[in-house]
């Protein structure tokens, strides 16, 4: 069986610059490593330590990210427009997964950059999808998936193929060193042309400017009262 960890598949919205003249400019021209990608590789490896682990990416350039974290080989999908719709991205990824045959699990970052893709991917594969995944552990034929649930976590037992959308809690601790990266670059990379099925696309019906957040000034004459007001405002905004 094969586990697939998907990485470098979404454009980073921080690379989108809106100039004072309203022009949009992208600083990058391909997907980049997302905050959750390292955790997605980790989860795929933990779920099936004895299975083959394959990295799947939509990026060009350095594709050794998953290999440097344990993937035996990498498949690089080519030909998907960088601003393709989530349905098209999910279709391209799903078709690549299907082409690999005996796949037991796909893990992908629970990306805030393109939040619809993990669920659409599961839908296209016809598999269950668990979102907000923290960690996994295999127990016999079952996979116990820990996902975020309310203020805590919940363990979900699944059998059969599944899409896990992983949300990293923190930055990657120890990144692979240069020697590991150089070794990873020697592992096989298959570059394949993406196949996008006949999927529905979304059309923008209109644009709305973000609502301007009014700033609020607290009168500091009574510091204790001002601090209390600030705390209560932060609580009501859900920050605290």
């Amino acid at each position, binding site marked *: 069986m094969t586990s697939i960890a998907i990485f470098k598949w979404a454009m980073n919205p921080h*690379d989108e610059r809106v100039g004072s003249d309203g022009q949009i400019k992208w600083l990058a021209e391909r997907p980049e490593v997302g905050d959750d990608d390292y955790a997605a590789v980790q989860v795929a490896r933990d779920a099936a330590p004895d299975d083959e682990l394959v990295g799947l990416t939509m990026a060009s350039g350095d594709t050794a990210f998953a290999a440097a974290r344990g993937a035996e080989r990498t498949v690089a999908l080519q030909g998907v427009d960088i601003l393709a719709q989530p349905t098209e991205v999910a279709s391209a990824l799903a078709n690549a997964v299907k082409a690999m045959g005996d796949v037991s699990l796909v893990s992908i970052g629970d990306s805030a950059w393109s939040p619809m893709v993990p669920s659409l991917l599961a839908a296209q594969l016809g598999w269950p999808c668990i979102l907000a995944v923290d960690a996994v552990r295999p127990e016999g034929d079952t996979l116990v998936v820990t996902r975020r649930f309310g203020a805590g976590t919940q363990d979900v037992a699944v059998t059969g193929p599944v899409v896990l959308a992983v949300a990293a809690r923190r930055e990657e601790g*120890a990144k692979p060193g240069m020697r590991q990266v150089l070794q990873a670059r020697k592992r096989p990379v298959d570059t394949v042309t993406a196949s996008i099925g006949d999927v529905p696309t979304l059309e923008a019906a209109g644009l709305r400017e973000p609502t301007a957040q009014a700033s609020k000034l607290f009168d500091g004459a009574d510091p204790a009262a001002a601090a209390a007001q600030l705390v209560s405002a932060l609580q009501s905004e859900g920050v605290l």
Partner: protein
Amino acid sequence: MTQFDIEYDVVVIGSGGSGKSAAYTVASESNLSVAIFEKLPEFGGTSKFAEGQGAAESIEQKERKVPFDLTGEGLPEGAHFPTREEMIQAYLDTSHYRASSEVVNAFVDNSGETIEILRNLGVEYEYVSCYAVGQENELYCFHQPKGGGDAVQAVLQKACEKADVDMFASTPAKELIVEDGKIVGVKVNDADGNELMVGAKAVILATGGFAQSPEKLNKYTNMPWIGDTFQPPIPGLQCTGDGLDLALSVGADVSSTVPLQSGASTPGKMFGAGTTNAGLQPALWVNSKGKRYVNEEVALALMNMGTVYCQLRDGISWTVFDEDYLVFLETEGSALAMGEFLQVNKPIRNARPEIEENFAQGDPTVAKADTIAELAAQMGVNADALQKTVDEYNAAADSGVDPRFHKPAKYIHAIRKAPFYALKMCPVVVCTCGGINVNRDMQVVGYDEEPVCTGNLFAVGNDASGLYGDAYTIDVPGSTNGFAHTSGRIAARKAIEIIKG
């Protein structure tokens, strides 16, 4: 023959503005391979904290035609964007011709292009003006990018990634590998502690100088005490002169004195802190003996002010004022401008709360008392000496004449209304400006002024000497940052030329 783990055409050591600019130039202007090695886990160096770039005859200056008025009170008569010749002359004059004409001309002639390249990559410039409004002779060449140095480095980082520059963090360069008198590579240590041999046809040193090495500060500046008295502007930086050590290992010539870009702040606090903002004002400054030592108006000429603080052998100065002056700062505002941190004539609102809070916490850098004697006791200075200094200062305030240092009357505020305050200040070394001698192509040269190692070793940014004399007392704001980006590109172009033959 060395066995390499990997080979590149060009290796850049350090990922600040100079290193990234060099690598981006190689990657975008040639088909050569290039890698950056960075010692810290994050890319960007001190360049992330810099504010803006100095340049002459840039596209921004040409389009804007007149400098931005930072005060809102109108530009001084004759204010204009400098020509290249004016900028070159400013370096030569202020360094008393100790600057290298080769390096100065190379930088200034290419400085405008830096702004254009950064702009094309996505940097937006908010204004072009001077930096420190009170520094009378300053040129209007400071380009302030939106988002400051952090935004500029993010843009360059993207550009490097897009151009497939190979970048390794937590991978310090340790040694140059030399064969038959030519640099053939670099030894680096990776994040897991493995030593790797990296082949290179050219090596560019961009390690950001040695502002975090007390030993080198004492050895290579003309202030052999500064390594013991300074504080860094930001914690966690690691510019320890590795580039200088590497260059010295292959016979590079080193400047006799390396100037410092410096400032002052309350010990343990950063630029922008309320105590620093108040302590920088041209009130009464006394040394650890309780004596006045300078015309405090120097505060308005920021770079000179840094030099003054650096001269203090024990690094201790106190800014002394009274309640009336604190109210003055809260209502009339700052006498000096300091980029984003302080604006001239703008009230300083964070001074009183921080002074009160720090004093209440027993912070020894803040003194507050109802008598000068008590204030002196808290400061640890001789009470009689301080009283004498205050008396003289008050006499100068009354007469409007400062016989000791000739400070203009408008900056002399009597110290009479209790409570009295004293804020401890210390020198801040922002960065070192040079060390390794280079020619106009940024090739590292030996004592004979010829390139070392057949010319394939370069030094750029804070590692390279040439722009200054023995102090950074220059009137060209944004010099070091403009130079970092520009010198990186100059070196890269020469490296491409050498490698391509």
